[in-house]
């Protein structure tokens, strides 16, 4: 069972990991964007964690909704809107529940990913965060179908996101600011796919930790 504590641990861990990679993400964005992704996303997740700390004991729906709204109102830029939407859609599918099964978690990630696609209209191969989200969601689905335990399944998820992130390097951007560069976007890793990987890496690590504590 995945608890609200697990989800809060995920968001805290993501905030810390994004803060640690702030400079790296901004550098990636400087190469093919406008050099603000790291600073903006780190500021946003820090605000998410702060908001959650102020309102402990909430069910999952309000947690995700708070995260989504906070990202939307503190990040700015394309990724703020897309990640914000991710969590708002996630909130929709969990409602007032306090726990999730692994299958529920898959539903959450799928709904969130679909929310990103709905707003951003990116397709796989457009060199965006979708190139990390989609392989990750597919990997989770496959792993759970194969009967893997949650912690192993989430590591597979993060690994798929990482591979998806690396796969953006040779792509030519067709969405977002990098698309203005045309062929000059080739050879650079997409900053949004990178932050998506970091967020999923945080998810795998956080739930492994919580599992370890429970074990």
């Amino acid at each position: 069972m995945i608890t609200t504590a697990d989800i809060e641990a995920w968001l805290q861990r993501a905030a810390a990991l994004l803060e640690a990679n702030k400079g790296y993400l901004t550098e990636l964005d400087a190469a093919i964007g406008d050099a603000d992704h790291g600073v903006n996303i780190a500021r946003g997740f820090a605000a998410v964690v702060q908001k959650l700390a102020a309102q402990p004991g909430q069910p999952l729906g309000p947690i995700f909704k708070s995260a989504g709204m906070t990202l939307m109102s503190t990040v700015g830029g394309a990724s703020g809107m897309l990640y914000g939407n991710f969590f708002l859609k996630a909130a929709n599918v969990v409602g007032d529940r306090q726990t999730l099964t692994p299958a529920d978690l898959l539903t959450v990630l799928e709904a969130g990913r679909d929310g990103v696609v709905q707003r951003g209209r990116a397709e796989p191969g457009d060199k965006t965060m979708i190139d990390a989200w989609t392989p990750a969601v597919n990997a989770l689905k496959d792993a759970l179908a194969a009967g893997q335990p949650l912690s192993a399944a989430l590591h597979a998820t993060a690994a798929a996101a990482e591979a998806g992130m690396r796969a953006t390097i040779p792509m030519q951007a067709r969405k977002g600011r990098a698309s203005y560069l045309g062929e000059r976007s080739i050879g650079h890793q997409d900053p949004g796919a990178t932050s998506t990987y970091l967020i999923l890496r945080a998810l795998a690590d956080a739930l492994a930790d919580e599992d370890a504590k429970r074990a």
Partner: protein
Amino acid sequence: MKKLINAVDAVVREQMEGMALAHPDLLRVSLEPKYIVRADAPVAGKVAVVSGGGSGHEPLHGGFVGYGMLDGACPGEIFTSPTPDQIFACGMEVNGGAGVLLIVKNYTGDVLSFETAAELLHGEGVVVRTVLVDDDVAVKDSLYTAGRRGVGGTVIVEKIAGAAAEAGYSLAQTAALAQRVSVNSRSMGMALTSCTTPSAGKPTFDLAENEIEIGIGIHGEPGQRRIPIVDADAITTLLAEEILNDGPYTRTVRSFDPMTGDWAEVSLTSEPFRVGDRVIAFVNSMGGTPVSELYTVYRRLAMICKERNIVIVRNLIGAYITSLEMQGCSITLTRVDEEMVRLWDAPVKTPALRWGI
């Protein structure tokens, strides 16, 4: 980094505070969330015109708040789109009952924020429409990119839409006119030097003493191409020809239906400039180029238009949509009809644009 700023994370707030102190007769400022509205907002019965975008492009948009132009402006962090809660709060405050027109520059972040804000405002019963500005001919296609960026044409759209709203146009009329102005605007910019964002503290790109960047946007992003430095006449010719030789441009944009609350896909086509077209010519400084140099550019632009039989009926020369302290310029031409010229000439009273009143 050399700038007249204090703490890096206070830059936008302190500039807004300065505006509030300087122009209490024209505007009011909200800091939480950040937006700027007309001193007399909401104006009952008038369509409210709201725009916004990243900071660092001043006077756009805050400097255009006031009688005859914007009712509200929502500044994001430097070069970062504003967030939906800002736009929502601003729209709520300026809505005078005749609806709110959101003017959106075509950047993914801006578009997503304004779309969300439109939905939120609609949810509160506010009648909303959106208009997209995407005039940068440096971006060639819309199929394989996020589409043309909104640049200099934004200033022209905001002036004419603001005048239309002031003149009592309905929301649908104001939106239709604004979209028409946008579709008839084409811009192209260049940089002599890079700019430096306060948070980065160093120039966004490196440009050698003998290089210039052609086809830049307004966020210090790399341009279309880098070329060896040439003189002002050659630069002007290059920018003007990109604009004047640009073919038809078709793109699909999402337009908000204030009745249903749904998004409709609309196909828009910009027609190339043709002999005999009447235009507003706008020569803009990227922030660090003094107005004196803009006149050398205008001189050549006027000659080129004359040769091509494009009739400049109005002009605007100065720093109106900038990239911090970047040196360089952009040229915008907007094909206008009599209605647009009349509204361009209509009185405007804002910190940065003022005439007739």
